[in-house]
């Protein structure tokens, strides 16, 4: 009988303590980020939607090889005819290879960062994960975004140094969230 009463008293007391924990939180402020009106800017290393810079790209195909889910495809443009060497002057440096088209399948992307790591261009990467995470599509075909010559789909993105977050204004799609590097 004493055990029974002890148990009941103990249970009652522990129940009250539990109630106290929840009551305490009731009067503490909520930690909610109200998403559509407040948007978290991810940390600089965040792997968001892939962004591509056609100007910086040297069409090496490293990203295609690195991608574990084969979501990248590209083609090299026909090289411009080499300038006729002029006598007495050093030969013009070989022209940088140009991209003909570049296709990213966002639906299949892993957001793993291997392509970005493998991109050899310096000082700014041609392919990198932006900080943008808001992207929604209504068809599967729409998710395959491709860049074509003469088509300013992504424009030229500006890279800033890591850690420094600067809102980008001249980019077409990624407007509200800044870009790194």
């Amino acid at each position, binding site marked *: 009988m004493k055990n029974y009463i002890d148990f009941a008293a103990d249970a009652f007391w522990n129940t009250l303590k539990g109630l106290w924990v929840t009551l305490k939180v009731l009067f503490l402020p909520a930690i909610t980020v109200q998403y559509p009106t407040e948007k978290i800017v991810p940390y600089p290393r965040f792997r968001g939607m892939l962004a591509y810079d056609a100007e910086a790209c040297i069409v090496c195909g490293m990203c295609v*090889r690195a*991608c*574990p*889910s*084969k979501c990248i495809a590209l083609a090299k443009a026909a090289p411009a005819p080499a300038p006729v060497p002029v006598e007495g002057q050093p030969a013009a440096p070989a022209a940088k290879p140009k991209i003909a088209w570049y296709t990213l399948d966002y639906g299949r992307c892993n957001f793993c960062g291997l392509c970005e790591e493998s991109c050899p261009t310096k000082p700014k990467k041609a392919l990198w994960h932006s900080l943008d995470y808001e992207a929604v599509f209504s068809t599967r075909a729409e998710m395959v975004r491709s860049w074509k010559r003469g088509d300013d789909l992504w424009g030229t993105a500006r890279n800033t140094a890591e850690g420094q977050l600067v809102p980008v204004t001249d980019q077409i799609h990624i407007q509200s969230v800044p870009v790194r590097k």
Partner: protein
Amino acid sequence: MTADEILAKLQASFPGLVKSEAPVKEYPTWTVPAESVRVVFERLRSKFSFDYLDVVTATDWSGPINPKGYPQSPAVAAGAAAAPSATAKDIFEVVYLVTALSTGMRLCLRCEIPRKEGASVPSLYGIFMAADWQEREVYDMFGIHFEGHPNLKRILTMETQQGYPLRKDYEHLPDKFD
């Protein structure tokens, strides 16, 4: 007691039990003939307190993977699957890893069986319950039969699965979802 001493003791009753030529790194690795798998493990458990079965798995040594085993061509790195592997043999290799929890000693036992339909090894079900699902998985993936397993049926793949996926020559047949 070191692994070599245990091996010497066991070899007295099981002459087929030998040290492997290509050991698993940092593990004493022995090769055991298929017919004595169950008795060796019984002995290991009762006499040498190897009471914890870590892994039962298998390897198909028949050579490079068949790209047809994938519904879409995978991102196989260039040249990886070109030449037949130098180690190609026509065998399945069933691998067991056991641990003695009291001493912390670890062992790897291997059993090579000819690679054919209905290839089989004795089941460890009953000695180690851990073998239950792991053997079912090996059966599911490789089609290796475990004699004496009471419930040997597919576990991970669908009942309608054709072939054994982890065999190197597995060919994927398109189904209604592909």
